[in-house]
């Protein structure tokens, strides 16, 4: 924006744009809940909410009214102030992160104005999103802690550990794109991907980075299959256990807004944001393009939730530290090399694809080895990675399936018969 | 752009630093002592950034960056130590850790 813009105008414009953005986000949140229930129901062969209004479209409104009038419980052992504030923190943080996301092209390309469709275009935009979303964990940790409930506390601790673990991979995955873009400003990143810029969406240069980002993002927003903090079966509802009514829905709101944010970031960094082969020059259309792309990712989130079972907690951690982080480092190194050597984008893309293929092949190979072992009688045995008795773990041949597993199971039975091992 | 004297920022920095120092001296929970140390580091960081801005040189900011990183490393190790102490002693009062008494 031109330097001549008076400060008051800047402030006013920002306030107005923020207000509009918040309204939009809240609306999307409300309808996301409805869409999610419909989509999941469809996937599961059910109907979902379809009574209130056409296709049940007024369902979010009904829910909101219900939530607003629901009694709010404050546990006796809670730390009251923090208990009350925690959900608010979550929402505020979620909303603030969105401030630098450009949801459309400038109204008059080439002539920046204060009314362009983003709240602020700061030159550390992406860092802003990362740093603000790293604060999101506070809402959860504080909520869980202040509830004065072990389940809540455990849920919040899980959440903290999970978010810290995946934030590193997330940031590193994005760094590849940043190297191609050469800027941290969200608007500039999008411009780099338009025909006026480098003319490619960075997904083609960064397939590996994108994959890591998506996995890490799902974990970062605590969505299935990484929704450990609120795992009903394990922790009743994690940090949400003691919350009800509006405060509960504030947490939901934060979660959905975060989803929108990470989808927007994915769109912006990997799919060209509001650009679509020149069409974005029609100002209104650029916002639609952006919305469609984000919607695709949101749908992806719902789809994942409906499809994948929840992952075990230790595997979640292992996935984050031993799989995603090394891959992200590898991606960053490869990308840095490509950028530094001035190689064209498709080299980087091909290397990324090759790594993906290699990783998939290895994983597939391993899973085949460990999936099932066939005994001599032809019956399927449990894979060796399933440990029945903890104390004989080291004696089980955990190497390759097949005979090792057979031997292990036989040894296990022998031990059980001896009475040396108690199940 | 600045109309605020540099010493004002530095006095804020000194205040924060002293508060951190006192925290180290009077608190017995090692976690809070640790936080007080972080406070002291941050007070110094404030001084660095202030001087960087006033001297118009990026060096101070680089120092802050490095302090930040080292602080992260320090916290990681320190918290790991505290957790392992807690694991063995079920108690993290620093006054209980006085095996070095003469």
């Amino acid at each position, binding site marked *: 924006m031109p330097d001549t813009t008076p400060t008051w105008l800047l402030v006013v414009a920002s306030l107005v744009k923020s207000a509009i953005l918040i309204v939009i986000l809240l609306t999307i949140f409300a309808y996301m809940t409805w869409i999610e229930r419909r989509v999941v129901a469809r996937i599961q062969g059910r109907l979902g909410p379809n009574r209130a209004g056409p296709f049940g479209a007024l369902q979010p409104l009904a829910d909101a009214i219900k939530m607003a009038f629901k009694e709010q419980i404050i546990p006796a052992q809670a730390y009251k102030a923090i208990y009350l504030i925690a959900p608010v923190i979550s929402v505020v943080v979620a909303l603030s992160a969105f401030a630098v996301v450009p949801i459309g092209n400038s109204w008059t390309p080439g002539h920046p104005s204060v009314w362009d469709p983003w709240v602020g275009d700061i030159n*550390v935009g992406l860092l802003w999103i990362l740093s603000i979303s790293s604060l999101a964990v506070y809402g959860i940790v504080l909520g869980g802690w202040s509830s004065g409930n072990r389940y809540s506390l455990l849920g919040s*601790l899980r959440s903290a550990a999970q978010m810290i673990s995946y934030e590193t991979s997330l940031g590193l995955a994005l760094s590849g794109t940043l190297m191609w873009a050469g800027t*941290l400003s969200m608007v500039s990143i999008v411009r780099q991907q338009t025909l006026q810029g480098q003319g490619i969406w960075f997904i083609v240069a960064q397939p590996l980075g994108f994959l890591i980002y998506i996995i890490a993002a799902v974990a970062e927003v605590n969505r299935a299959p990484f929704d450990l903090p609120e795992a009903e079966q394990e922790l009743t509802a994690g940090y949400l256990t003691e919350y009800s009514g509006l405060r509960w829905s504030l947490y939901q709101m934060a979660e959905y807004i975060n989803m929108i944010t990470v989808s927007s970031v994915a769109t912006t960094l990997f799919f060209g944001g509001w650009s679509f082969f020149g069409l974005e020059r029609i100002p209104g259309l650029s916002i639609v393009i952006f919305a469609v792309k984000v919607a695709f990712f949101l749908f992806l989130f719902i789809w994942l939730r409906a499809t994948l079972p929840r992952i075990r907690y230790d595997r979640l951690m292992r996935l984050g530290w031993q799989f995603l982080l090394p891959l992200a480092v590898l991606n960053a190194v490869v990308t840095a090399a490509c950028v530094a050597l001035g190689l064209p984008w498709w080299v980087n893309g091909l290397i990324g694809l090759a790594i993906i293929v290699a990783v998939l092949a290895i994983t597939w190979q391993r899973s085949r080895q460990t999936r099932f072992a066939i005994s001599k009688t032809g019956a399927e045995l449990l894979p060796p990675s399933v440990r029945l008795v903890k104390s004989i773990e080291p004696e089980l041949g955990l190497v390759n399936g097949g005979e090792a597993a057979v031997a292990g199971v036989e040894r296990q039975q022998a031990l059980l018969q001896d009475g040396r091992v108690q199940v | 752009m600045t109309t*605020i004297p540099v010493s004002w920022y*530095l006095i804020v920095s000194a205040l924060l630093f002293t508060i951190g*120092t006192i925290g180290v001296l009077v608190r017995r929970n090692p976690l*809070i002592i640790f936080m007080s140390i972080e406070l002291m580091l941050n007070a110094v960081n404030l001084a660095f950034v202030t001087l960087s801005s006033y001297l118009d040189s990026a060096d101070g900011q680089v120092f802050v960056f490095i302090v930040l990183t080292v602080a992260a490393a320090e916290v990681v190790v320190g918290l790991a130590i505290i957790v392992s102490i807690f694991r063995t002693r079920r108690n993290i009062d620093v006054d209980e850790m006085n095996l070095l008494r003469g």
Partner: protein
Amino acid sequence: MSGPALIISFFVLAVASVASALGVILFRNAVYSALSLILTLLFLAMFYLQLGAMFIAIVQILIYAGAIMVLFLFVVTMLAADPRDPDLQDRLPWQRGVAAVLGLVLVGALSYLLLSGTPLNEAARAHGSEALSQVVAQQGNIQAFGQALFHGFSFAFEVTSLVIVVAILGALVLGRKA
């Protein structure tokens, strides 16, 4: 931002940051202390913004508030799950008084030094193309920072990365089940 707005914001931030810093050492509950510290850090980040160090401000939030303090909170909530334990007898009750007096002396002396015309106010500024403001004006904040970091302090940078690796290994070793 300039003139009275700047001064007002400075004082608001100063009071807020000092107050929240006092909170760190005054709260009995470690979680509240941690929250106070987070607040202090955020206020400091705003100070940095005020001083034109945008990158440092953001990194302050990202690393300190977003990572370090989360770790703190993690440990605090884990270890001090029930902070209402009866507090043990303070074995050094006299130290509070001494510390307070010494703290006052320290602040007083420092303030006196800072206000009584130390050479700081007349310190020479960097000039020419190396000057921070010039680089920022030409290339932007991050670029200026990056140049300083990787040109003048690349060795320190590398050493820091080594420190981090060592710290990670140390934490791993310490965190292993004995």
